[in-house]
């Protein structure tokens, strides 16, 4: 094979690899992104339907209830409240009155069924998404 052909073949190979990677990446990005939504947006019906998304906010004081392995609590941006249920063990840093992020879907009754509960690993640290939700709510409330 001539060097010129060889180089052409290599370039074609590299481009094909990149193309396949690009397809894989775009496809995966499309189906695996979870949108962050604030409790107020959920209450206003702006949450994606039938899709997994994340809510950031505060866990309302006194809202945590246990029913064997299922826990119920309310996540709020201090304006709107969304009831959340989660089956399993909560992370160590999950606490009433502290920030948390939950990932899951809305069920038909407007209850959020979480598949994942994230609390961050420093007691003095507020997840930026939770902070963002509170700030948004405050801004809109002040208007």
């Amino acid at each position: 094979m001539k060097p010129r052909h060889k180089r052409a073949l290599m370039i074609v190979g590299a481009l094909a690899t990149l193309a396949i990677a690009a397809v894989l990446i775009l496809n995966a990005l499309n189906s695996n992104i979870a949108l962050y939504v604030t409790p107020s947006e959920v209450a206003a019906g702006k949450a994606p339907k039938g899709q997994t998304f994340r809510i950031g906010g505060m866990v309302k004081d006194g809202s945590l209830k246990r029913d064997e392995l299922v826990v119920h609590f309310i996540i709020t941006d201090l304006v709107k409240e969304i009831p959340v249920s989660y089956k399993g063990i909560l992370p160590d840093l999950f606490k009433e009155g502290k920030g948390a992020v939950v990932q899951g879907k809305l069920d038909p009754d407007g209850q959020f069924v979480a598949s994942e509960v994230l609390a961050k690993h420093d007691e003095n640290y507020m997840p930026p998404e939770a902070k963002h939700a509170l700030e948004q709510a405050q801004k809109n409330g002040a208007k």
Partner: protein
Amino acid sequence: MEYSMIPEIGHFALILALGVSIIQGVLPLIGAQQGRREWLVLARPATQISFVLLAISFAILAWCFYVNDFSVLYVAEHSNSQLPTVYRLGAVWGGHEGSLLLWIFLLTGWAFAVAQLSKTLDEFMVARVLGVLGLVATGLLLFVLATSNPFERLLPAAQDGRSLNPLLQDPGLVFHPPMLYMGYVGFSVAFAFAIASLLSGKLDAAWARWSRPWTTTAWIFLTLGIALGSWWAYYELGWGGWWFWDPVENASFMPWLIGTALLHSLAVTEKRGGFKNWTVLLAIIAFSMSLLGTFLVRSGVLTSVHAFATDPRRGIFILILLSLVVGSSLFLYALRAPKSTLGGAFSLMSRETLILLGNVFLVVAAGSVLLGTLYPLLIDALNLGKISVGPPYFNAVFVPIMVPVLFLLAIGPWANWKSTNLNALLKRLWLAAVVAVVAAILIPRMMGEFTILTALGFLLSFWIIASGVLQIIRQFKVGKPTRSFIGMQLGHIGIAVFVIGVTMVGAYQEEKDVRMAPGDTVSVGGYQIRLVEVRPAQGPNYQATRGTFELGRHGKTEEVLYPEKRNYDSSTMPMTEAAIDAGLTRDIYVSLGEPLEGNAWAVRVYYKPFVDWIWGGCLLMALGGLFAVMDKRYRLRLKK
């Protein structure tokens, strides 16, 4: 109350080090360009002095932790008098300021090592390499002194410190960051060699031979650092997973992928004089990825385990530093790289081609990880909303890209440089292919369910192992193998061992969250776990609730496990301490959740088959790197 002046000495040493680094970064580089010997020779002493200054500074910070000097803000924020001594020392790099000081200390340490071990290297090259390292050190020292001074005083001093995050009070913390940083920072040497070669216009095999052991050494540390972090997350965070595609994990994984590509590309440059431009570019990217990792972790733009509450100035400073390094080195690359040639010709079926293919896949993989990591930041910056990209993205993209890499990895070592005969290759590899297919069919049937993905995992790992074993046998028939050869085989088999662990855990693990009262039994993976009791226990600086679980099989108790729920005195945050019965073929993992009604507890029980093979594989890879570095051809050069 009297305050010790010692922290000021540490601060002063840092300022002096900045001055020395500027000299180290400027004069030798100019001297090398203009042929001024008297400037050139400054490189070594300046490097030595700045290393000593950083060592003093670092030792003083450690001393402040040791004597509980709470008049130092950083100490007061990250330690307290109740903290056991070993964790007080670990706490030196438990926060932002200290970990950056460690970064720079290690950077000057690498530069010092280059200065000491380069006696036979061309003077101009040494001056340039040390000069580039001096410039990098200058940038980081400016950053520390301007925004993150670890010696900042707190007057009047705090009565006691605020304590280290309990999560970090673990032997894992003592070793994980230094190892990881050794790797991160170590790529600065490969980077400096690359820039020096661009400056001099001398991109030859000798350059690659010099740069190679340094790159491999950095890669060993990075491999160990990532593995330690993964292991730590597994047993300490109480999640039982070994990799989460957390942005910070990705930040350490991207330089690893590029570094791995660089190792192989350097081999081609050394042996065949080829891929020079590509190798230089990879060296630049590897270090840029290390800096990007530092930026991502330290700037607070990411939501992560590793994010500290931060000051936006810091993020901007690192971003500027990052763009300066990347921008100026790519600019230099664009100016100088086209002048060097492609190197020896090779045919389509040759070791060069295989390595090149592997390289392309590794770089594409790193790119896909980069995209997934930065995408949420990009969307947020463009005000298009807040999103998160989760593990499914990374699994969907990363795994398919890695399949061809693993497939090629078994063939590469058999192929000859320049050109290789496809028929001869097939003749040697058919047995490995048979072994791989048999393993792919039989093992999933033995373990339980058969799926395409598990079969693929075993196919590829046994393909690599069988091919490696065949080649080792052949090599021993011919004569004593070189350390390089042993290193390569160990590294490749390490990958296979890792893949076996990942496949086994992915397909056959069992995870159960259950309600258990004393006397209750739960079974996973053929084992029975019985809760005996839950009672309070006292630790050195925490109160705990300790569970007693009997782990048994076929009605016989084999092991007793004691998971704990801890409350540290200095913190309001509870800590889950999982109990793990580790074994060669499986781990049993038990952790306490929350107390439930009726004296019961929510308990998490995991059965993790072959999970330790994941870290075992990483150890093998690192060991392989060690063998490669100790190869005779590098040592002979050092002795001369």
